[in-house]
């Protein structure tokens, strides 16, 4: 895929989401469902690659770009992560004080709740692809419980799950 197209599609996703993984529904729609540039398994791997290393969770967008267009695609992904961040500079100047508006805060919370619904809809096909037996189902449930109710770093959970996969094979 052309790097400019990758940048435009990823930018559309990052510009309309308000946290790292919230861009995933739109990215899945554009890259997996519409253009078939990635499979669900590759999208899963991209999310893993973003979480396995240090830095922001949204960095998985770079891996999506890499899958879709090699190194130029990865560079397009990086730019799509960075570009919306600079919107904060004019916002700091003009919106200072307005974040206290109850209506603006309520609208933002509406977006967060809508994003949760979208994220669930995007997660189900990924889960369907990942669950291939009782072991992987157990990993899904255990990961959900650990990350929802403890402060354990997600990177450790990812590595532990990979290790469980290895041990199950051995």
């Amino acid at each position, binding site marked *: 895929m052309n790097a400019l197209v990758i940048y435009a599609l990823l930018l559309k996703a990052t*510009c309309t989401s*308000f*946290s790292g*993984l919230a*861009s995933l529904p*739109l990215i899945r729609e554009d890259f997996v469902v519409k253009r078939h540039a990635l499979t669900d*398994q590759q999208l899963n791997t*991209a*999310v*893993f*690659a*973003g*979480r396995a*290393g*240090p*830095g*922001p969770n*949204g*960095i998985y967008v770079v891996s999506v770009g*890499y899958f879709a267009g090699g*190194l130029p695609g*990865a560079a397009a992904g*990086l730019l799509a*992560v*960075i570009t*919306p*961040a*600079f919107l*904060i*500079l004019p*916002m*700091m100047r003009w919106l*200072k004080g307005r974040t206290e508006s*109850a209506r*603006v805060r309520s*609208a933002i*919370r*509406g*977006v*967060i*709740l*809508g*994003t*949760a*619904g*979208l*994220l669930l*809809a995007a997660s189900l096909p990924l*889960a369907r692809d990942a669950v291939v037996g009782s072991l*992987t189902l157990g990993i*899904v449930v255990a*990961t959900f419980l650990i*990350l929802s109710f403890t402060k354990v*770093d*997600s990177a450790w959970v990812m590595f532990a*799950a*990979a290790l469980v*996969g*290895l041990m199950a*094979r051995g």
Partner: protein
Amino acid sequence: MEKPALARVANAFLRIGNTTFGGGDTTQAALQREFVDRQGWITQEDYAIAFSLARITPGTNVVAFCAAIGARVAGWRGAVAGALAETVPSAAIAVAITWGYEAWRGNPWVHAAIAGAAAAVAGMMFASVWLLLRPHLRSMRQALRAMLFFAAAFIAAWEFRVTPLPIIGAAALAGFLWKDE
């Protein structure tokens, strides 16, 4: 307050932004310790403004946060340094991991490890859904409103295949018109 050299600011972002695991919240807490408490480059108020505005800036919150903190300390060059230092090294690591997957995916051992990790990613996605919902479930009224927004977005996407953008727009409009407090 004396402005630090750009290299020192970039170095602090590089050191902290790329050695903290666990996503944006961990990084922002670590940056607060360094920029506010240890170096005194910004005030607690600067930090709080950057933190809250980053929450409503589209994209990855922590990258916007770093741009804002960088701008406060060293102007637009600080903003660029903050955003780049936070993302470039971790992007390189993510590409290396992705490349490794592509190169080794035929190997059955790597395949087994990836299968385990892929299941964990699915569990993590469900946990993200829960963590997004949880703060909105404090009272019965708030929880009912939250579940209505959540369920409407899920059904629109899952059952009726509505694309994400109109759903996000509708959620913002509904939230604006129906205040939750």
